[in-house]
């Protein structure tokens, strides 16, 4: 079945839902590269009007990737809860937008709706929303997760401490961890991207991070962001694994390109749960995503990159994660060209993830070949803060010396908390006060409780 829409005397037609969603997407380079974008501003708004008139119930009848061809589609369709969907079953996409913005859509109503939402419905409504709509609705969503502390409470902003080192030098990692702790980062997780996926190296880093956490008695969790199979091997060999990390995508083929399947993720989660390391809760999966990864892996099935990204969140929500974030500006300008595209994508991703019930953070970031700079990051960071982002990254001086890209700095986290009156996770905040961290960093010294010697930094 196709869709048609007249705009300014021109009749536009869209052969299927997949095409309609792609043409309705606000401009971004990845959809142009894939040959999916609207050819003109008129065609885009025609698609947006046709999409606004589409009943939400249509999404139950037409999949963007066929059920038989894709395990992610099967996950989405087979787990769809019609009872939860009932309150909005009569709405069009446009009517859904109006309802989301209304006072009726409060935190409780939005939470009850989650099992009834398919990611494609959420992606569709985001395509006819402005930035302020994406901010306003996301800010109403409440998603709380727990492992050794509590993330996502109202009035809180958490930070992943990302102490990457180009050669996995334990001293470099330890120094960056101390720097981050001194600047209030680390309540979301202390999480290192290893430079190699070598299991011995990964286990050494896991031991180091666990030592840091124990010596300083930090109420947080640690993670080495290795491939899920490497983490499973580390668990088998007795390494102290808190969280299981994996990059995921919104199609079965995209996940295959990451070397994972849904059963493999379930197996990894079971292995980590069996360690029983969470003290407050058992949310222990950490997923990274990003628009464009499916196109990059030639695994997009002709679906636009933002819809595919929302489908990745349907994968994530099957595993009760502690943390989920897109690495929004990392993939490069052929997918998100400039600060404007990165900003919109970051807010779309946060909105879609929150609406689907995920503890969404965002890696606010860019590479040196994107048309973006620190001012763009400040704008996106501030918008996400207003939108109630669960966590952001913290990298020394915003410069990741291993991954060679720019993310948010520890200072950026301090700025956002101060500007918006947000505080760290409660358990971590109490720990910071006990350690006298704020005063020490103001005086340019490490507090006695954070002695570098405890980590072998003499």
């Amino acid at each position, binding site marked *: 079945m196709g869709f048609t829409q007249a705009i300014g005397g021109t009749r536009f037609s869209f052969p299927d839902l997949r095409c309609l969603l792609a043409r309705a997407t606000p401009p971004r380079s990845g959809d142009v590269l894939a040959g999916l974008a609207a050819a003109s501003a008129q065609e885009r708004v025609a698609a947006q009007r046709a999409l606004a008139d589409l009943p939400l119930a249509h999404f139950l009848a037409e999949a963007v990737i066929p059920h038989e061809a894709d395990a992610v589609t099967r996950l989405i369709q087979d787990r769809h809860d019609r009872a939860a969907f009932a309150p909005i079953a009569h709405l069009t996409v446009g009517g859904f937008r109006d309802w989301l913005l209304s006072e009726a859509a409060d935190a409780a109503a939005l939470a009850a709706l989650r099992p009834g939402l398919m990611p494609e419905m959420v992606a569709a409504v985001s395509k006819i929303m402005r930035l302020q709509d994406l901010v306003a609705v996301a800010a109403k969503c409440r998603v709380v997760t727990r492992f050794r502390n509590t993330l996502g409470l109202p009035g809180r902003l958490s930070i992943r401490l990302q102490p990457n080192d180009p050669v996995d030098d334990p001293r470099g990692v330890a120094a960056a961890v101390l720097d981050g702790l001194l600047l209030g980062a680390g309540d979301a997780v202390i999480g290192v991207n290893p430079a190699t996926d070598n299991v011995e190296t990964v286990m050494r880093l896991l031991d180091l991070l666990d030592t840091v956490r124990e010596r300083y008695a930090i109420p947080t969790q640690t993670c080495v962001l290795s491939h899920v199979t490497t983490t499973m091997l580390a668990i088998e060999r007795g390494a102290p694994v808190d969280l299981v990390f994996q990059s995921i995508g919104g199609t079965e083929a995209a996940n295959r390109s990451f070397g994972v399947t849904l059963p493999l993720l379930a197996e990894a989660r079971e292995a980590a749960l069996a360690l029983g390391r969470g003290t407050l809760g058992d949310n222990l999966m950490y997923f990274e995503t990003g628009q464009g990864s499916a196109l990059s892996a030639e695994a997009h099935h002709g679906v636009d990159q933002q819809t595919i990204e929302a489908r990745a969140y349907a994968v994530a929500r099957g595993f009760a994660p502690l943390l989920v974030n897109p690495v929004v500006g990392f993939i490069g300008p052929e997918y998100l060209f400039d600060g404007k595209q990165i900003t919109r994508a970051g807010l779309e991703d946060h909105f879609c993830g929150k609406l689907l019930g995920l503890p969404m953070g965002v890696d606010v970031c860019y590479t040196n070949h994107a048309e973006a700079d620190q001012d763009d990051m400040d704008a996106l960071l501030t918008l996400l803060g207003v939108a109630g982002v669960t966590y952001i990254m913290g990298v020394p001086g915003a410069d990741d010396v291993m991954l060679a890209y720019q993310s948010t700095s520890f200072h950026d986290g301090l700025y956002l908390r101060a500007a918006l009156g947000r505080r760290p996770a409660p358990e971590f905040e109490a720990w910071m006060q006990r350690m006298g961290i704020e005063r020490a960093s103001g005086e340019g010294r*490490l507090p006695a409780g954070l002695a570098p010697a405890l980590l072998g930094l003499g």
Partner: protein
Amino acid sequence: MPEPVPWAALRRFTAARVGLGRAGHGLPTTAHLDFQEAHALARDAVHSALDVPRLAADLAPLGLPVLSVASQVADRRDYLLRPDLGRRLRPADQARLAAPPAPGTFLLVVADGLSASAVQAGAAALLGHAVPLLRGAGLALAPLVIAEQARVALGDEIGEALGAAMVAVLIGERPGLSATDSLGIYLTLGPRRGRVDAERNCISNIRPGGLAPEAAAAKLLWLAGAALRLGATGVALKDEQPAVPLLAP
């Protein structure tokens, strides 16, 4: 009570931007401007253009014929947006390269990639080490090709047009804040259009302070020999070159 440890003491353990202090919740002015300077250098490197005549002159002492080609990309913006066009030769160059072919040769392509300034500064020194080693190993070398607005895979089409047995593409890597002058080498056996990245071997981070050019040249020779013995490049070819000191001074 032990003496308090100054925050800045962390700096000696890492090249990361630690121990910067804070001005309120923000970066102190010096640290802020240090960052802006590094970003400006990286941005200018991305948008730098190759001076082909000067590069050809720098490469002349190698004693190889030098050809110059370009991809189908129109300008730098197009290069960033259309990686597919950066992998295709201009039609005029397709025809020109084929006559005369250089069948069975080892082809070296010097490509601007994401940092023409890195190529301008470092390619001649790197090839100054690599070409004598490759010749000494008895490899017949194709004419040297300089490629503008090029992605790695452009080497496949150039190699196919020349009938080369193997291609090594020297290319400017994406500039980071700490290094804007880094070169990479991608080695592909049996170059032809449609080769994928899993069929290549990569030597990266070739720069002052990174992998030294003589070490990179030695690794290229080792990989080329191993590729010929194995009949493949890419994931099947593991880098098992005996360890040598690799850091440039």
